């Protein structure tokens, strides 16, 4: 039984290591900033996720206690990672990408980076 536990924990660690490596490799290989933005979103999901699962298994099966910290790390990562990516994307777009380079909104207003929001309705 013990050997099975160790194999499972090691497997998750190796999986997360591989995805972390591929994510970092993507940063080097991809051409422009928008493409490179895709690489770290990989490392934070499966890369970190694998380590967290391995950690939970370790505490559950080896140390015989349930640990919730890994679930909280997942929760906080899911809350913060998209916001970081969005901020980088917006900063890059406003500095380097012209409005003509991206497709239209198919609506009345342009994209928020290039266009002002509509006037708020009159409050009574």
């Amino acid at each position, binding site marked *: 039984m013990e050997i099975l536990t160790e194999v499972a924990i090691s497997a998750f660690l190796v999986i997360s290591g591989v*995805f972390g490596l*591929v994510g970092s490799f993507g940063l080097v290989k*991809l051409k422009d900033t928008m*493409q490179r933005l895709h690489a770290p979103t990989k490392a934070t999901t499966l890369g970190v996720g694998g380590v967290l699962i391995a950690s939970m298994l370790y505490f559950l099966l080896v140390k015989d206690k349930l640990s919730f910290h890994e679930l909280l790390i997942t929760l906080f990562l899911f809350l913060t990672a998209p916001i970081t990516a969005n901020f980088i994307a917006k900063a890059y777009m406003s500095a380097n990408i012209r409005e003509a380079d991206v497709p239209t909104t198919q609506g009345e207003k342009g994209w*928020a980076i290039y266009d002002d929001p509509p006037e708020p309705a009159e409050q009574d």
Partner: protein
Amino acid sequence: MLIKRLFPHPILSVVLTLVWLGLVNKVTLGNVILGGFLGIVVPFITAPYWPNRPLLRNPVAIVGYFLIVLWDIVVANVQVAMLIVFKRADSLQSKWITIPLDLTSAEAITVLAGTITMTPGTVSATLSADGSAILVHCLHTDDPDAVRDEIKNRYERRLKEIFA
């Protein structure tokens, strides 16, 4: 109603209590009471800051949505890892995709944008100024319309059921 005044935001109360128990990492009576106390006091104090909070129509659907997103993250992670390792960088066809939104509440759009970013291969870049469309950057696709339809059918349709 007393219950309504004590718990202006019942789901937040439960989440706060669970997060507190997770942070101390030990379930004892004292921790449950302290977590429950935080779960009552924090929503009570912060209630004025969300006057137009959308109601959750179907809280059970959140679990299903979370599991689907989790599965998609795993599948798409492998796909993007393959792209990065095996495809030549100059043969990647990155595309901007406009996705018109049916969702209107800020909270629902935030969840959708976060989901798009967390599922690898797509990053949400910006909203239109009136919030009626979202601009997505796709790492590699031959068929932008298929990506748009999948996001609309898979995620947005479910979010419309969750948020009233």
